[in-house]
């Protein structure tokens, strides 16, 4: 394996050093013949870890495959992604989990950690084979019906009890379906009233977070709140953490950057579930990511084909892609305004999500002896996003045409270059 010296690179703590990558690790001294990369002006972060990615394989390989999604992830600076369970078929057995896990190994560009469904077929009626998925080669530790919310409190309680012995975590898409049903597609407020779009009220999110936090407390089990979008939801998470409940929360790059006002022309690229919110919610999310109430950034990268978006707003599929612009959004909304320093970016986008998904070889410090999972970041570079310049098979990119940071220079997975700016 080739050895690489990242010369004069700045670490997240602000110090400058040479990082020597050899045999998949960060080593004390570079072997002779190592390639030297001049990294002056660049920052090295531990490889990013996405706790929430939709890879669409099996089922919708026209919109994304494990390979194409892995490429997009590497371009976004990721060395690991957690693949959501809502494929076709749903990942709800050990065999299906091992299939996706195998596809990830074959692609070999990022570690693909499989997320298993909480309930069979995401139907919310019976538990999926949680323990068998955990004991499979895929070593599933995180379970989610994402896309759907487990509505039945009793079933949710039993799922918490079932995963507790093996340290599993339930990642909930928090959406009370009686308050925000299938027609809910726009943040409930002035704009939903004006545009005549079905309102998605914040309380539909916070009420489920509160319920699940109390179930997690009652069972002593772990809850992860996917894609939190509301100030009220953040308040509930803050309360739960203060009580000592095992809860973590995630925010998406698009909920940090984009607002409900994008919907004014009914452009379906901005249809996402939960919906884009108003600035007061966005400010609350940014503050919560800064103070640690929100633990991780998760992309909710959700590729869709054009024909599934070319419908009336209410009929179009919800979701937007986000792997490649995730760090750009975090720099724009958090680093530039001084809400996060680089060490904390490394925490929210690498250390904390790796800990959440129990990925032992990911999210480690950039220190001798650690795995050489590294992303090189140019903090000053910007570019206008072009949706066609993407490794994803889909083009539902909400950042298209926007001037944003363009930070990713190169990504290394265990010392091997998986992306370099071309």
């Amino acid at each position: 394996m080739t050895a690489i010296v990242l010369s004069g690179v700045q670490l997240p703590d602000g110090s400058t050093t040479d990082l020597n990558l050899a045999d998949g690790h960060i080593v004390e001294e570079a072997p002779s013949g190592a390639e030297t990369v001049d990294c002056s002006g660049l920052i090295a972060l531990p490889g990013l870890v996405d706790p929430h990615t939709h890879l669409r394989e099996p089922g919708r390989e026209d919109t994304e495959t494990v390979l194409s999604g892995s490429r997009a992830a590497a371009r976004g600076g990721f060395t690991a992604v957690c693949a959501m369970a809502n494929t076709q078929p749903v990942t709800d057995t050990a065999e299906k989990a091992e299939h996706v896990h195998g596809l990830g190994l074959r692609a070999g560009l990022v570690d693909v950690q499989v997320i298993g469904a909480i309930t069979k077929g995401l139907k919310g009626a019976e538990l999926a084979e949680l323990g068998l998925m955990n004991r499979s080669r895929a070593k599933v530790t995180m379970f989610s019906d994402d896309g759907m919310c487990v509505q039945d409190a009793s079933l949710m309680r039993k799922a918490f009890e079932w995963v507790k012995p093996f340290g599993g975590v339930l990642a909930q898409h928090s959406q009370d379906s009686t308050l925000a049903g299938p027609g809910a597609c726009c943040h409930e407020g002035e704009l939903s009233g004006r545009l005549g779009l079905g309102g998605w009220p914040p309380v539909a999110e916070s009420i489920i977070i509160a319920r699940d936090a109390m179930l997690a407390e009652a069972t002593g089990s772990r809850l992860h709140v996917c894609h939190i979008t509301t100030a009220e939801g953040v308040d509930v998470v803050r309360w739960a953490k203060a009580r000592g409940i095992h809860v973590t929360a995630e925010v998406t790059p698009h909920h940090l950057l984009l607002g409900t006002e994008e919907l004014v022309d009914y452009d379906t690229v901005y249809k996402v579930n939960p919906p884009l919110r108003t600035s007061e919610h966005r400010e609350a999310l940014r503050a919560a990511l800064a103070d640690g109430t929100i633990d991780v950034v998760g992309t909710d990268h959700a590729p869709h084909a054009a024909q599934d978006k070319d419908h009336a707003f209410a009929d179009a599929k919800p979701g937007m892609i986000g792997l490649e612009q995730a760090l750009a959004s975090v720099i724009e909304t958090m680093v530039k305004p001084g809400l996060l320093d680089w060490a904390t970016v490394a925490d929210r986008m690498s250390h904390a999500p790796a800990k959440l998904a129990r990925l032992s070889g990911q999210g480690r410090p950039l220190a001798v002896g650690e795995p050489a999972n590294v992303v090189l970041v140019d903090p000053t570079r910007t570019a206008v996003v072009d949706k066609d310049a993407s490794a994803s098979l889909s083009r539902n990119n909400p950042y298209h045409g926007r001037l944003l940071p363009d930070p990713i220079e190169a990504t290394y997975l265990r010392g091997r270059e998986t992306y370099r700016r071309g």
Partner: protein
Amino acid sequence: MKHLLSIADLSVEEIHSILNLAEEMHDVQSRPVKKLPALRGRTVVNLFFEDSTRTRSSFELAAKWLSADAINVSAKGSSVSKGESMRDTLLTLDAMGVDAIVMRHAGSGAVRQAAGWVRASMINAGDGMHEHPTQALLDAHAIRRHLARNGLGTIDGKRVSITGDLIHSRVVRSNVLLLKKLGASVVLVAPPTLLPPGVETWGVDVSHELDPVLPDVDVAMMLRVQRERMLGGYFPSEREYIDAYGLTAGRLAKLKEGACIAHPGPMNRGLEISSAAADSAGSIVLDQVSSGVAVRMSVLYHLLAGEEQ
């Protein structure tokens, strides 16, 4: 004017131009021979993704009386279920070279989206819970005629109440925009469960009670309340709804002299409006229907007659 998507897009001048021409078109309806040659050779497609009898037939008559060729395309059931995207449905019709597409769709904003895809002029015949601009224009036309008949002046300065299921109504959004542009003051009357979010930013008055509102209004517009809404908990029972919001025979007496009663139909007699009210001397319900053809003739003329043939 290329499209008619929302009342918000119209200037006051354009509104007056449409309503004034509608007056002339209205007179044509009383002639034995109703056909005008204005749009001969032009083609208008009625594309209805949602069922409609009165709006579709009204647009069809309007097109035919202007000598345009009119065809009806029913695309009932969303295109999603047929496996064709809405965009492809629109592009297919557009490729046939039609001049205008009159479109109704259950999805809010669908007609605006369509206007971004096609070459033809798009006319919004009702998009979800968003807008129904020709309904608002015909309501204004009928109100104008009522005021003129009774020597009561113009809409400017008049007060209009709109009562009913406002949260699900595309009519209320178009009417609020239009009536305000014409100088009327609007009061919306509904229980909190049936009011759209953000209504306090619309520049209208809002009341949860009908009784105190009625004595001051020049127009009492009643909107349909679907009985099925009870299932969603929007109101407890028909009789409780009627007790607070129905235009009952008893409430008729609260209206001032010369006030008129409007309803875009279809009416639920005995629910939001009593027969006593619907059939009263002040009712302009049937005038609204005849106004519909005249206003739609005017709209088609404004969109199509100006273009090079």
